């Protein structure tokens, strides 16, 4: 076991897969000579050369087109978006093209590519650089959407994404990138641990119970899984035993794990970093209502970000996305406390 930061887990997954499969290449802005905007591809250009670590102009449409076409032709591209917000410039390539090609041509082609990059609220990056847009991708058949919360899942899911035969969107949480192993392990012992085995992967569609509890189920993904763990720690001090379920992937979505948990706790809180309206938490709540209505002792609670573009001012930013305290309040509400 190594204790890694989330960013290190990304680097190590990318590097191992590039070593293992020479069809894999990375394309994006500042991935090579600049050593990566956030350093995850540091040293890659030197190690793998310019055909496999491709520095691109600021041309997201071109980057994704390069990925889709070369994937159809048998390569396994990893397209880095400097921030996932910038994928919106090339949304057409993802939604109207990458997601459709398999089906539209009756299974003749496949598009084994990864589109990855940092996502979500950061440090006062405001409206155009703070979004968690996974719902826009998770809405679309033909895509897969990965939302890792822990360094081990980051590594294991990214490796699975790179081996998958479909377009996979990997939403990397900017706020978790450089979180120190000590900080993570203080939230939950072992949270920063990543297996050394180069064949370690994490399968898609398997949610993970990160903390066992009996009174209420907290369901999160990405940054919100960490918030749920912090909330569970606070709840424990007040004598409330919370179970934390980390979804890991939104598409495919494993509902069996959260529902098994709810059958035990009879209460659920679903947490999502950004806008709740029509969001992932809404989908999960609906599925709980459909499949476990009679197991519930209280209405499912959603905790989501404020329905506003991200503000810049630090005090406003801080109240625009769910805190562990918001989750604690929602959990208590399911318990009538």
């Amino acid at each position, binding site marked *: 076991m190594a204790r890694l930061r989330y960013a290190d887990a990304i680097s190590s997954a990318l590097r191992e897969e590039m070593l293992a499969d020479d069809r894999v290449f990375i394309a994006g802005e500042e991935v090579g000579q*600049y050593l990566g905007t956030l350093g995850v591809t540091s040293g890659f250009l030197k190690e793998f050369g310019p055909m496999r670590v491709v520095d*691109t102009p*600021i041309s997201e449409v071109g980057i994704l087109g390069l990925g889709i076409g070369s994937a159809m032709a048998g390569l396994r591209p990893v397209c880095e978006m400097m921030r996932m917000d910038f994928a919106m410039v090339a949304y057409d390539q993802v939604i109207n093209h990458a997601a459709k090609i398999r089906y539209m041509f009756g299974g003749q082609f496949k598009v084994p590519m990864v589109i990855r990059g940092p996502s979500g609220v950061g440090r006062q990056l405001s409206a155009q650089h703070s979004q968690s847009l996974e719902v826009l991708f998770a809405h679309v058949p033909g895509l897969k959407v990965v939302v890792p919360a822990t360094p081990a899942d980051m590594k294991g899911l990214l490796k699975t994404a790179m081996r998958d035969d479909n377009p996979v969107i990997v939403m990397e949480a900017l706020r978790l990138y450089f979180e120190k192993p000590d900080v993570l392990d203080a939230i939950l012992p072992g949270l920063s641990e990543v297996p050394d085995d180069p064949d370690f992967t994490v399968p898609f569609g398997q949610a993970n119970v990160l903390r066992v509890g009996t009174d209420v189920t907290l369901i999160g993904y990405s940054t919100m899984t960490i918030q749920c763990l912090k909330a569970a720690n606070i709840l424990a001090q007040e004598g409330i035993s919370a179970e934390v379920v980390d979804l890991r992937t939104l598409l495919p979505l494993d509902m069996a794990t959260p529902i098994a948990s709810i059958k035990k706790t009879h209460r659920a809180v679903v947490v999502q970093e950004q806008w709740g309206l029509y969001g992932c938490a809404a989908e999960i709540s609906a599925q709980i209502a459909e499949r476990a209505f009679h197991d519930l002792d209280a209405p499912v609670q959603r905790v989501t970000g404020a*329905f506003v573009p991200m503000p810049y*001012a630090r005090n406003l930013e801080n109240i625009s996305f769910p805190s562990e305290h918001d989750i604690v309040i929602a959990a208590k509400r399911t318990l009538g406390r």
Partner: protein
Amino acid sequence: MAKKPTLDLTKYVRFYEQMVYIREFEELIGKEWNNAAAHGMGGYMHLYSGEEAIAVGLIGGMDLSAGDCFIGHYRDHGYALAAGSDPGEVMAEICGKATGCSKGKGGSMHICDAARGFYGGYGIVGGNVPIALGLGWALKYRNQKNVCACFFGDGSMNQGAFHETLNMAQLYKVPVIFALENNGYAMGTSIERSHANQNLRSRVDSFAMRSVTINGQDIFEVHEQMSQIIQEMKEDPHPVFVEFKTYRYHGHGAADTPVTQSTYRTRDEVARAKEEKDPIKFAQAKLIDAGVLTNEMIADIQARAYASAEAAMKFSDESPYPDPSELIKDVYA
């Protein structure tokens, strides 16, 4: 171009002063970045030092009170100051304060000043360029004798949006100045490594658009040429592409440290640009030569500029953060 009129040198002393004000403002932010959190600053922070003559000379050639307007990208503090926006309000925005020009909600990348025709700074590379088409269209639609300037960087020219926009602007003959601030780099990527055709001006030839290249370090050239062009655009609406050659002194943003900068440019290159291409030094020398600027005036301007930046920071520091109730306001009109 018509015969050069004699220069109104007092105007250039004012421009010189504006450039010094912008420089001091940006340098103070750069210095205070060590204390960013205490001031409320965060995010990327893109500074304009080295490029001042473009905003000052071009915006100085527009008549904002009569309806001329402009739009920019995220390296936007200098545009607002050149337009005469209140430095305190700009600084307060950069620090996320309630008194900021965007009420603390936009931050450094999203300065605006509706009263002065500044339609804002935008953070998506190339995203502001299509909007300029619409701003220009509205001017033409209302038969206004006005122009719109659109500032963007060399990186924007590799976005599809740029090329769609220029084609339409020429097709509809909208009065937009597409003002390319070619500082040689898009973040850590040089022109050589990102443009197949490195003659950026020639990239717009295919749209049959009028274009010109201007030394963006020479306030006289920027202003004289742009004033002439603006006048012609007002008489006969049409778009113009202007390549300003310039240089950025600081890293791309605050995260682009000396270490990351060393992956794409040498300290020597930066030092040389500061020595040989500085727009302020250039203007200073010419104005001294012309006998309209003295060493005492220079010292006085420098002192006032510094005091203005400090006063802006003080105004910001004494301003409150936005009230939490602001969070949900202004989502809709």
